[in-house]
């Protein structure tokens, strides 16, 4: 699916944008800068029209049906057959709801419309089920962890002197928070430079090896994390004889994260409009400058998102850390030796101990982990909410100001040239730039 990105006839049709007039509103519009074309593969689809809005009558009907179905189910459950159980109640209510809704709709609507309504309810309820499940995961975790979370020591102490039976005002998961941070920072240091350069290689190079690398990377996203852990355990620890440590864990997580980040970064970089590269090339920039000053900044938010999502994935991995670092109950700042706990592993170990307080600590640690993931996720949303090249208002203002100052500078230069009567000769290596530009053409 990689090379067909632009081959889709529909996509191509939709995305040929009329070129922006080069000088339109150069100091007033946010879109004046040359680096910001409007074209973007995903956004360009014509907007859909809203098809139908709910009428008041529909709402009344829904509410009435809901009420009557609950009452009916209560009747069946509580009085007539003495059933019990929340799950059963919910399912029966839902079925009764569907039946009543279908019948009542059929009073006023024809068959297709009734089917339409029932299906709409079914689809909506599936979404509700998914959301309720997610909410139950989140709230259940926070709820059971709350008794541990509300103690400040939970964030400032480790478990070195904490026995399983001890109260929650002793001991915390500092060691796991710090351990996770160290492991993830090291994994990022190992991963990000390689991943981004590799993604650049995949998008910018014409080398024949690109396809091989891309295939391998795609294949490696299928690597189960435990196998990555097992690989590092068998090589790094058993063959090379390094101790089980935070470093080993971060290597394992890197191996797992690397293909994930490369692939999403690859997708993001491919979304950078080719016209930008061409423009840069046409201005005579060598390729590395094009990449460094045009492609990467344009895709910055997307790249950040892909890295953050990679981190969110890696930070929650338990199995590789279990194999390569092992669990520790005390703070360890030395990643080169001794076990270093990570949050997910701590959660796993604490809850499997079973004592109430340990389980509460485990849920607390899970809540901390989830809070970290949430923060990362929201950050990714805020940064990555915009597609490649689209700027935040602040960035746009800065860009406009910069363009304006550039214009002043260029004007001044031109004025100086006119003064000295120097006729700017075309740059000799224009051919190089041109040939670069032509290579940007996408292959079907």
């Amino acid at each position, binding site marked *: *699916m990689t090379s*067909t*990105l*632009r081959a*889709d006839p*529909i996509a191509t049709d939709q*995305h*040929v944008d009329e070129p922006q007039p080069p000088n339109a509103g150069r100091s007033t519009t946010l879109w004046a800068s040359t680096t910001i074309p409007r074209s973007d593969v*995903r956004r360009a689809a*014509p907007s859909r*029209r809203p*098809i139908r809005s709910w009428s008041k009558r529909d709402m009344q009907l829904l509410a009435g049906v809901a009420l009557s179905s609950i009452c009916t189910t209560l009747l069946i459950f509580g009085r007539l057959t003495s059933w019990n159980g929340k799950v*059963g109640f919910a399912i029966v209510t839902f079925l009764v709801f569907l039946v009543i809704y279908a019948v009542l709709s059929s009073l006023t609507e024809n068959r297709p419309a009734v*089917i339409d309504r029932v*299906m*709409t309810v079914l689809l*909506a309820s*599936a*979404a509700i*089920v*998914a959301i309720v*499940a997610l909410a*139950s995961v*989140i709230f259940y*975790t926070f709820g*059971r962890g709350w008794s541990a979370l509300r103690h400040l020591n939970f964030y400032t102490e480790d478990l070195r002197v904490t026995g399983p039976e001890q109260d929650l005002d002793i001991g915390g998961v500092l060691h796991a928070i710090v351990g996770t941070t160290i492991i993830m920072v090291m994994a990022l240091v190992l991963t990000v430079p*390689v991943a981004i350069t590799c993604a650049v*290689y995949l998008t910018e*190079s014409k080398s024949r090896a*690109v396809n*091989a*690398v891309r295939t*391998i990377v795609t294949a*490696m*996203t*299928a690597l*189960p994390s435990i*196998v990555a852990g*097992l690989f590092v355990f068998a090589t790094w620890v058993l063959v090379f004889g390094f101790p089980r440590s935070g470093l080993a864990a971060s290597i394992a997580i890197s191996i797992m994260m*690397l293909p994930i980040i490369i692939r999403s970064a690859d997708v993001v970089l491919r979304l950078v409009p080719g*016209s930008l590269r061409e423009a840069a090339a046409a201005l005579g920039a060598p*390729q590395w400058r094009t990449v460094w000053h045009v492609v990467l900044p344009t895709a910055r938010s997307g790249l950040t998102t892909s890295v953050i999502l990679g981190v*969110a994935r890696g*930070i*929650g991995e*338990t*199995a590789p850390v*279990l194999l390569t670092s092992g669990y520790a109950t005390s703070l360890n700042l030395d990643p080169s030796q001794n076990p270093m706990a990570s949050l*997910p592993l701590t959660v*796993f170990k604490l*809850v499997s101990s079973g004592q109430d307080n340990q389980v509460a600590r485990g*849920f607390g640690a*899970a809540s901390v982990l*989830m809070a970290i*993931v949430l923060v990362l*996720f929201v950050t990714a*949303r805020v940064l990555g909410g915009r597609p490649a090249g689209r700027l935040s208002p602040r960035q746009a203002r800065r860009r406009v100001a910069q363009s304006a100052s550039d214009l002043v500078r260029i004007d001044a230069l031109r004025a100086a040239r006119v003064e000295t009567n120097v006729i700017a000769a075309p740059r000799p*290596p224009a051919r190089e730039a041109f*040939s*670069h530009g032509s290579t940007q053409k996408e292959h079907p």
Partner: protein
Amino acid sequence: MTTTLRPTTPHGGAPDTPRTLSLRLGRSDKIFTRGTFASGMIVLSIMGAVGFFLTLESTDALGKVGFGFLTTSVWEPDRGVFGIKAVVTFTILIALVAVAIALPISIATALFIAEIAPRRLRSLLVSLVDLMAAVPSVVYGLWGAFLMQGQVIGVSRWINTWFSWIPLFKVEGADPSNPLSNATVYTASTFVAGVVVAMMVIPIQCVVMREVFSQVPPGEREGAFALGSTRWGMIRVVTIPFGRGGIIGGTMLGLGRALGETIAVYMVISSRFDVSFNVLEAGSNSVSALIALRYGEASEFGLSALFAAGLSLFMITLVVNFVASWFVSRSRSGASSDA
């Protein structure tokens, strides 16, 4: 967007003959090209090393038992009797249960997001589904082991009571007519693990499908409406056929994730090594759980056997993922999805 590159002949006149282009890189670009090439090769070699090492390590074990590796269910490498029949069967069963639960929910959610939800709700739902994908698997494991297990027992018992005539839902040792029968026969089962894994599969499938559904050409949608279709009619005749590739691809991707899940499954199941297709029955297994359970105490040969198991799991997920990508990319819709 690259169409403008070719020089056109706007003013008529003699058509341009294409120039011969030659590329001579500057020094900086040479460094750049070689640098990026090097990083590509580094990645290639790392990934190659992983694959190579997996194969190398497992040859020892595979060479000893040969095809028996696929047909033996017990796992006692030190006695020379081991195979992945049971673990792989259970792994696939868990994944299938997960997909069976997740598929209706994720298709319906994706359709709801793409076709029905109002604009504001839509972006919220998209975020929530993405968030669902970001929740660490250990948290799902907690949820499964502590909250779901108790609920699922009731469901399992009910299914077993009414549908035990279907071989899949039979439970050895369960006697629904005996109120004193043990609830333990329903715990730690493939089904419970499948429910937990389904939570991880839903967002993955949903994201792919939503992306595909949202690319339905507006012309076709509006055409359907113009012909008097209801919204469900439009979904049935336009959206679903258009997104079929995405549905299949998304399902396969979810399957790939479900196969490789370790810790959530490990927290829920009780491992067993006799093949059983009774998904409600206590005890299950998975390749990753096997590795997590046995890596520490494995002898050198045992480790090699674990590598062979890991390799086979990798192979399965690899095939599933490639098939998924193939479906997504071949479909009319999935051309630009990043599946």
